[in-house]
């Protein structure tokens, strides 16, 4: 239970970074922390005490494995996070080229 809560605190830190920081790179970092927290949360949900990794062994029959399904989901989620982060960095670099800064208070051509 405490592990879940610690994980959600990590999620909140990422959210705080996204919503409150004024630097594009810090915002991207906040996003990656948020996705780390989500991935960890999913894997925590599938952990089983004294479970083995979900890989079969040729010489013995393993009865007690951890849940492989959340791991498969996290596998997908990690790759999605990688794609998002790379896209965000690309956009941030182009913004830097155009505006000459990473500070979002100075990036304000759109109004209304």
């Amino acid at each position, binding site marked *: 239970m405490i592990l879940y809560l610690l994980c959600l605190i990590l999620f909140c830190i990422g959210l705080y970074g996204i919503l409150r920081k004024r630097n594009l790179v810090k915002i991207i970092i906040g996003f990656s922390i948020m996705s780390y927290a989500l991935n960890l949360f999913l894997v925590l949900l599938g952990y089983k005490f004294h479970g083995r990794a979900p*890989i*079969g062994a040729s010489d013995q029959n393993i009865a007690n494995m951890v849940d492989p399904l959340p791991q498969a989901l996290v596998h997908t989620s990690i*790759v999605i996070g*990688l794609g998002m982060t*790379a896209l965000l960095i*690309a956009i941030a*670099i182009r913004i830097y080229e155009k505006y000459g800064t990473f500070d979002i208070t100075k990036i304000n051509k759109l109004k209304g």
Partner: protein
Amino acid sequence: MSSKTNTGMSLIVKTVTRIVVSVILVFGIYIVAHGHVALGGGFAGGIIIALSFVLLILAFGRNVAVNKISVTLAANLETIGALMFLGIALLGFLKGAFFTNILSKGVPFKLFSAGTISLSNYAISLKVGIGLFSIYLAFVILERYKQGK
């Protein structure tokens, strides 16, 4: 500073890189090939392959990268990987449904087993490896343009 990054790092780094890159590449292929037996798989292996190329660019500088490596070829290979995976999915129609595993399952724990799973691993590794490498290449090329200005 800028000329240094264009031509790469020192001789020691270059020599070590020459040796290490092939090992990393082989390790990546190993991870891909054993994705269905032990840990690993197309994604992890593909990224390792991409990282080996990234290491080459880091050590030898971006001039080498831009002159020697064709962006078009990379993009084509990536597309072919994606199409292969879609093709494997469509092959399932031969035995009923989308994504049916049509090949024989083979003997567990052997390298050539699990039917389309290992084939999909190869297709995905091609797509992911080349794709992520071309992302990195795009970043590098962008910076070169700016310096040339």
